[in-house]
């Protein structure tokens, strides 16, 4: 049995936030932000918007694209690092918002690899017969957590809000992508190099207090050098592995749809894979959306699908790297 992506949708908040708007507060110049990230603008949700609300809008569009109804869904997966609330997960809120049946709803916390984990789990559910149609929601509202001061400038400049949803089904349809393979890996020795420590049992579960010694533990932390060095190598190795085990080479891939982390990192990965860059094959939405973490790969994939540029038989490589560190690569083929 096979599994296919038969629908996709994306939803971005209306408010556009340019580098010019935030640069001064972050102690940077607009051009510095662009040069070091490839980002010119991002979308930030209005205060009070929930992550599940963005996800529900994207899922509505994905269902429309797949020509399915909410009641057709057998399983809901929701990948986010910025949930509506600490407990429970955000997937029940999407289930309620769209009126899905009383199906299993599972949140995934694999950071910027959430799309890959979602695809791997969805494929397993579909090919095992546990579900026929799986909704994979991917969404973030990161603006609510950002520290807009120079001490966090190089982190806060990166992140945007947005959502994407994918429908994974056991039946191919027009524009379907067969999920051929997903390879994922993790090395927990880097757990402190990227992420947010609190609230949690290791560093404190109480509410944030600006006067307390651990207030920084509630903010995003990133060892940029470690992220770049490890991501550059691990993404390339994971991509090579998934290609090799499917008897393919980078030259066989028409589209690379990576997690949209940073333009310089994407260029480094393309170079490392010797991926041809002369055919617009690297799909990037980074300039306009910023890094939307869990949602970024889905937003890029939906943008590519809706551009009408995918041809039957095209191979798509989907590499990602995120906090954990966890990383991997997926492989899809346009089946129709």
């Amino acid at each position: 049995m096979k599994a296919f992506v038969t629908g996709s949708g994306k939803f971005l908040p209306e408010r556009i936030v340019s580098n010019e708007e935030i640069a001064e507060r972050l102690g940077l110049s607009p051009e510095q932000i662009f040069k070091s990230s490839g980002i010119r603008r991002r979308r930030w949700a209005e205060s009070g918007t929930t992550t599940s609300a963005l996800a529900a809008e994207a899922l509505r569009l994905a269902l429309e694209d797949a020509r399915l109804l909410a009641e057709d869904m057998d399983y809901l997966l929701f990948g986010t690092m910025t949930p509506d609330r600490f407990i429970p997960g955000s997937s029940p809120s999407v289930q309620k918002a769209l009126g899905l049946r009383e199906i299993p709803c599972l949140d995934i916390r694999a950071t910027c690899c959430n799309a890959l984990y979602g695809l791997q789990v969805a494929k397993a559910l579909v090919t095992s017969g546990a579900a026929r149609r799986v909704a994979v929601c991917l969404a973030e509202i990161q603006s609510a957590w950002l520290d807009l001061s120079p001490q966090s400038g190089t982190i806060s400049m990166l992140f945007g809000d947005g959502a994407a949803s994918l429908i994974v089904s056991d039946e191919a349809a027009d524009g379907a992508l067969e999920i051929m393979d997903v390879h994922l890996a993790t090395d927990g020795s880097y757990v402190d190099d990227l992420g947010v420590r609190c609230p949690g049992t290791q560093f404190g579960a109480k509410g944030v207090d600006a006067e307390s010694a651990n207030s920084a533990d509630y903010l995003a932390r990133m060892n940029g050098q470690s992220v770049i060095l490890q991501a550059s190598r691990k993404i390339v190795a994971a991509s090579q592995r998934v290609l090799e085990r499917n008897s393919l080479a980078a030259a066989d891939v028409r589209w690379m749809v990576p997690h949209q982390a940073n333009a310089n990192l994407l260029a480094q990965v393309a170079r490392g894979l010797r991926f041809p860059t002369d055919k617009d094959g690297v799909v990037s939405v980074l300039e306009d959306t910023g890094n939307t973490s869990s949602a970024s790969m889905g937003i890029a994939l939906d943008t590519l699908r809706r551009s009408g540029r995918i041809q039957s038989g095209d191979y798509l490589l989907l590499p990602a790297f995120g906090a954990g560190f966890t990383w991997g690569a997926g492989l899809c083929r346009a089946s129709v």
Partner: protein
Amino acid sequence: MALPQGIIDFLNESARSNGAEQPGTTDDLFQMGALDSFALVDFVTVLEQETGISVPDGDVNPANFQSIEQIERYVESKR
């Protein structure tokens, strides 16, 4: 142990493209502009190709590649 010329050429070219002087044996390659995080990834690939050693991901940090002298020591330790 002298490093293969391909490695020195890479560092010289990387320094040149960043407007820096050719690095000496003990110069800090990161401070002088011959290497940065992205260039280090490419550098390690060249190092592996030119010397035949394998650099584990955990070793890819500036501390191991701060100067030509340190790189020589690192390569020696891996042989």
